[in-house]
């Protein structure tokens, strides 16, 4: 199989299962394995080689069976879908029965070709309709005389699909994770025509040595390989190093890769942007406009800065405290004269210290939030309508979320889901000493 490396076994298996022209095909196949292990690639490759007509549907898109059926039919028919009324539309098809009927006509019109339905992300089928997955599993039984097979692809094992009755197990093909050598070989195919074999191979092994521990996701690795190649080539382009000098090249690229390691999976900065940032930093800072400066700062700094109105900040802090402090300690933290602490408190605290932050935020009623809010804001403020609308804003920003409660009208309950670093940076902007009020650190 050209263009596909390390998947010979699966390819052979698929080809033999599907058989040659004229032999009956299996009812259904189930390919599973991690994302990026080449399921789609191998399946399409094999099907194309065997001359089987393909319809390829992603189940994420098929939110109801009808969409799925119609997509499959239109692909098998080879027609172009149209949404506008000015063209004749294919007949609608919204049940399995109709689907079978239409398949029959399609098959007859095409001279009974071998056909395959490829279903990507088929775990989504489970939520769309109850009978669709088992129905598709035994599609051949419903369509005598049509040479059709259904190929499911998923990242989940088949056990997650079983249902109690009427389930016919599809033939399972597993796609294991690539080994390091296989990865090396696959990444090698990315080689641009300008780079020599050896040079690129060295580069790939450098990248793998850095990233292999963090991720084995092929797509991510490919991204990283493409991202840094230019930087890797730089010394060669400038004439400072030869293509064979592995060591200086490594010294040049290492900091880049190490930096990128912290942003694996975060495609926040595309390459052009990355370059732009570098350039901006290089140009003298004085030439820059303040807004640009701020841009860079906020991009490069890791802390999350959220600009909020003053009272919103206090509300957020109050919500955070209400979520992480047990309610019975409120007296201690927020009353001016809370009396002496009993000695036993220390022992209780020791027991609970670990729990409060590990267990995540707890729900709190609105009353408690407002009480804490008023006690941490020094000055007297009247509860205005805008104060409550700020609460609504925080909710819509998903810094707080409503969390049930039996009485949504009179005593709504919330939970603070703002990340800790956001809360801490908010505290810093208003010089609020959070640790003084936090239970587990008190």
């Amino acid at each position, binding site marked *: 199989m050209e263009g596909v490396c390390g998947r010979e076994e699966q390819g052979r298996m698929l080809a033999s299962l599907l058989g040659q022209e004229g032999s009956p095909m299996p009812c259904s196949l189930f390919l599973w394995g991690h994302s990026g292990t080449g399921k789609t690639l191998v399946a399409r490759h094999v099907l194309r080689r065997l001359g089987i007509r393909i319809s390829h549907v992603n189940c994420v*898109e098929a939110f109801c069976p009808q*969409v799925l059926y*119609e997509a499959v039919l239109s692909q098998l028919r080879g027609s172009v879908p149209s*949404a506008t009324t000015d063209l004749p539309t294919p007949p609608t098809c919204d049940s399995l029965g109709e689907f079978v009927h239409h398949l029959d006509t399609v098959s007859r019109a095409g001279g009974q070709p071998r056909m395959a339905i490829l279903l990507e992300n088929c775990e989504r089928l489970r939520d769309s309709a109850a009978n669709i997955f088992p129905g598709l599993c035994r599609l051949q039984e419903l369509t005598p005389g049509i040479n059709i097979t259904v190929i499911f692809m998923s990242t989940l094992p088949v056990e997650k699909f079983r249902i109690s009755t009427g389930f016919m197990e599809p033939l399972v093909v597993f796609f294991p994770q690539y080994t390091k050598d296989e990865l090396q070989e696959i990444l090698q195919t990315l080689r641009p025509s300008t780079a020599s074999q050896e040079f690129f191979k060295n580069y790939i092994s450098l990248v793998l040595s850095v990233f292999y521990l963090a991720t084995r996701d092929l797509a991510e690795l490919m991204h990283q390989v493409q991202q840094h190649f230019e930087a890797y080539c730089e010394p060669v382009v400038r004439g400072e190093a030869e293509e064979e000098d592995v060591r200086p090249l490594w010294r040049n690229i290492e900091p880049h890769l190490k930096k990128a390691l912290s942003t694996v999976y975060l495609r926040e900065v595309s390459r052009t942007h990355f370059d732009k940032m570098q350039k901006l930093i290089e140009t003298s800072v004085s030439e820059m406009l303040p807004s640009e400066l701020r841009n860079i700062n906020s991009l490069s700094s890791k802390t999350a800065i959220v600009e909020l*109105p003053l009272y919103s900040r206090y509300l957020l802090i109050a919500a955070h405290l209400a979520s992480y402090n047990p309610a019975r300690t409120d007296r201690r933290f927020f009353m001016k004269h809370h009396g002496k602490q009993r000695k036993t408190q220390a022992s209780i605290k020791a027991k609970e210290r670990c729990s409060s932050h590990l267990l995540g935020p707890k729900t709190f009623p609105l009353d408690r939030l407002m009480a804490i809010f008023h006690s941490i804001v020094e000055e007297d403020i009247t*509860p*205005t309508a*805008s104060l409550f*609308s700020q609460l609504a804003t925080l909710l819509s920003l*998903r810094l707080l979320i409503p969390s049930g409660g039996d009485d949504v009208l009179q005593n709504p309950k919330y939970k603070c889901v703002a990340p800790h670093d956001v809360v801490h940076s908010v505290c810093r902007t208003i010089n609020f000493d959070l640790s003084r009020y936090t239970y587990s650190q008190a």
Partner: protein
Amino acid sequence: MAGTVSVSKGVFAFKRPKHRSQRHAPRLSTLDHWGHGYQEEREENFKQLTHLSYTSCWNIASQILQELQDNIHSKVFQSLVTYIDSAGRRLTADITTTRDQTFGLTHALGNVPTACLVTGVNMPDRDATFQSLVGLLRSTSRRTSPPCRVKSAPRAAMYRMISQLIGGGGWAGLQDEEEEEEVVTGPKVKRKQCTMAVLAAWYQRTHPSSPRKAKKEPPGYTRSPTKTPCSPSKGNRSPTKRTHPSSSRKADKDTQANEGSPSKRIKSNIIASLPERSDKPPIVIILEDLESFPPRVLNDLVLICSQYRATVPVVLVFGVATTPDRVHHSLSHHASACLAMEVFRAQPSTHYLTSVIDKVLMSNELPFHLGGRPFKLLLDIFLYNDLSVENFTKGLKVCMMEHFMCHASSFLCCSPKHRQDMLGNVTGPQLDTVRKLPSFRAYVEAAPPQEQVPLLIDEDYTKKTILSLLAELDVWYARFCALVKVANALTSRLPGAPMGRQVREVLAVCLSRSLVDTEEYQEAVKGLRSMAREELVTVMQCVQDVLEEQLGGDEILCELLTEVILLSGRLSGLGQTTEAEDEKEAGGGGAAVTLKPSDRFHLREKLLDSAKNKGKKSNKYECLRSEVVQFFSDAFASHLQPPTTQTLHEVLFFHSSRAAKKMLVGLPRPALTTALANPHHYLQCDCCRLDEPSALVTTLPDISVAYKLHLECGRHINLFDWLQAFVAVVSQEDDEEGPVTSSRNVDQKLQARFVLAVSELQFLGFIKPTKRKTDHMVRLTWGGC
């Protein structure tokens, strides 16, 4: 509204008749509601005059504001549009040239180019921001599919998106904007067929790879977005829906009304800067409000877009309020690996506010000015509550209306060239309203005796005086604003910034008090007095720059400027001489030391000497420094007095923050407690008039009586006692007629009234039933909010 024949109580929905007759009815203008302050007939003229001045004022203001709104984001937008354009070009290049193996194809992996626009949390402004972005995109990509704007719509998102894109529908025509029903101008899209495959096919058809022939351009390009009906999403997958059609629609109309030249300005800017566009424009999908987008829908959307990347060039634009991290929070890592995201930051709204204050409030272009307290109020609302410039300008508008409605003399508050005409229309008694102004009376009293009489009697003379006084006031205000900026430049870099770092903070102080008397200023002076020379030089340079910018032909400012230049010249001169002396001294000292390296006594003496010299020199500098400080203090003392010290300030300045506050700051709880404790406040009826607030009168509404009685109880309220007290109060009126009901046997009717009142209180959240004690209610602390 038509009645129903139903006997059940309930809320019935009536479908609105298709053609509203209102369209043909004359539109009500603000004039019809104008002037609750003028009861008298003869003041009808005033009504006209003040309304005229008001409209002209507001027109000026809104024009400036619109210009600002369009320009404030122009820079970000420009880079955003460039990004979209280049991303689109790359994408379509990928599509046409089938994936060659050259490098730099991050896109070959199925990454969807995404622009993440961080807008800040000011919700009300966001609509306007995206509005202008959409307008910009449509104008720059004239030949493209329109950008589509999805507002946190869930599962119907796909339908909406595609129908917007294909139909060109969902973009209602301008003439139909009154129609609530969907008006599709393009081809109709069937709901069931809204899949990406359909979109891909459509895209292929409308943008064939071969040179385009006459393409069907969706007609009716207007800017009113997303009017698609959100039809009920079916299936259990559909998350909760959150659309705000009404508000967005309203905003649309507003912006349509005053959309005009300014927006065109940015457009042309960008068009000029863009290279010619490709034949295959990208499809731009804007998701405002990413946070409230259900994560699952977002995930699917990204996956689907990435899947179809080969056929449909989609560029996503996410509107994020908080931080770009949010995108990753709501996406699975699989989906977020499908994005190639770039972050753009819109100007923070504080920055926007600064320019609004600078252009609108601190300029004489707008004749109306805010006094100290209203300004502080608006500023507080902005900083503490919403960070929304839109709300700030709304507040400004309210203040303006209030000013023109409640002050008869405000008709003079118009641009200087119209004042003459305004005064010409005025009759004698009306002129008296100006004469009665306290500041004018003070002026008359201070005038020499021979002028006092004509000022009170002679109409023409008075008018002339008024005109010149107002002109003076204008000049004074310009100077005032310039000096506020000077004060800010002088103090903003002091450690701790005692007067704040922003111009607005200084302005807020200066508008309400005389600057030099404030504590903040004393602090700042202390800071200035301990400043090093280099710092002082740079500060003086700043001051000089500000003054040069603000000069505007004012003589006094010119004088100040020359003085400042002199002072800074002396400062730097001082620097040079001291440096020269330093060098000389250092040379001499060095020679002495080298001459007698072993003589420690001499060395010590020398060092002491030089230290003394230094002290003397810095004394020279200190003198100059205190001279500088004194100079500024004098200038501020004479020119930075609050506007209330000026004659006729009532005409141009709005001072009553109480009125504005009543309208701008909603106080639900106080309103409720006032209504319950003193119904007369709202009902304005004679029966409920109370002599003292806590008094209990029989004629009060039941709920009010119950409320007052419950205030007297502790945390737990015994229902029976409460009932007794209630009956006692309410039945006082019947005392004379019927016999007093025995305490055990309460009138059924009264009991029913009591129960109703109690349940109303419970509904308002003042009390709630408890299980701890039978027949008791608990008072709640935070009731009614």
